[in-house]
């Protein structure tokens, strides 16, 4: 079964450092997402990406965050200068074309745990 893969599975970084989290979505999917989950809390939407541009972003997704699809297969989340409160599990997700029963169903990766010290 196709899956979304994320790397690294766990990253530890110092406050103020840049971090790049990588995702390989399902190959024929066109919509891509980043969510995060602070330990013990709900899953929060960060950003959605379609047709090589951001289609929607939350208040969490400030200027410190950016996304990129550099080569048609990878989808990355960059945090320019990490803060302690950025410590969380970051989930990438993707979905297929609009329309149809399964269109709005997201396939999630296993997550990248980010620990900021």
């Amino acid at each position, binding site marked *: 079964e196709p899956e979304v893969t994320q790397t690294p599975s766990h990253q530890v970084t110092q406050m103020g450092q840049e971090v790049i989290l990588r995702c390989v979505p399902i190959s024929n999917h066109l919509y891509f997402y980043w969510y995060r989950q602070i330990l013990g809390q709900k899953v929060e939407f960060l950003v959605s990406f379609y047709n090589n541009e951001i289609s929607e972003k939350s208040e969490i997704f400030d200027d410190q965050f950016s996304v990129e699809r550099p080569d048609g297969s990878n989808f990355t989340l960059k945090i320019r200068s990490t803060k302690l409160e950025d410590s969380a599990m970051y989930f990438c997700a993707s979905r297929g074309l609009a329309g149809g029963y399964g269109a709005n169903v997201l396939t999630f990766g*296993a997550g990248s745990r980010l620990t900021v010290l």
Partner: protein
Amino acid sequence: SQQGEEDPQALSIQEGENATMNCSYKTSINNLQWYRQNSGRGLVHLILIRSNEREKHSGRLRVTLDTSKKSSSLLITASRAADTASYFCATSGITGGGNKLTFGTGTQLKVEL
């Protein structure tokens, strides 16, 4: 309260019993979905119910939706130890092409042998 709140927050049952989790939301929706998350892992889609549907079944899962009360329930029948996980409802709004899902706070289900 926030969009997508589940109750109970935690539920502990014996294997073979049924588990019922509830979800309430605030805004109009296109559809509502339930996802499962095993500890430390990603979310896995379980079932989707559209706003014009009232009930949906999939295997041991039964989902109901009451748009007048803005609530949904997930019933897992004949639970197994392997059903132990966190369960989240997620709503897809009417605007924006249903682009994003807004997740609830989750119910932690523990099924004991």
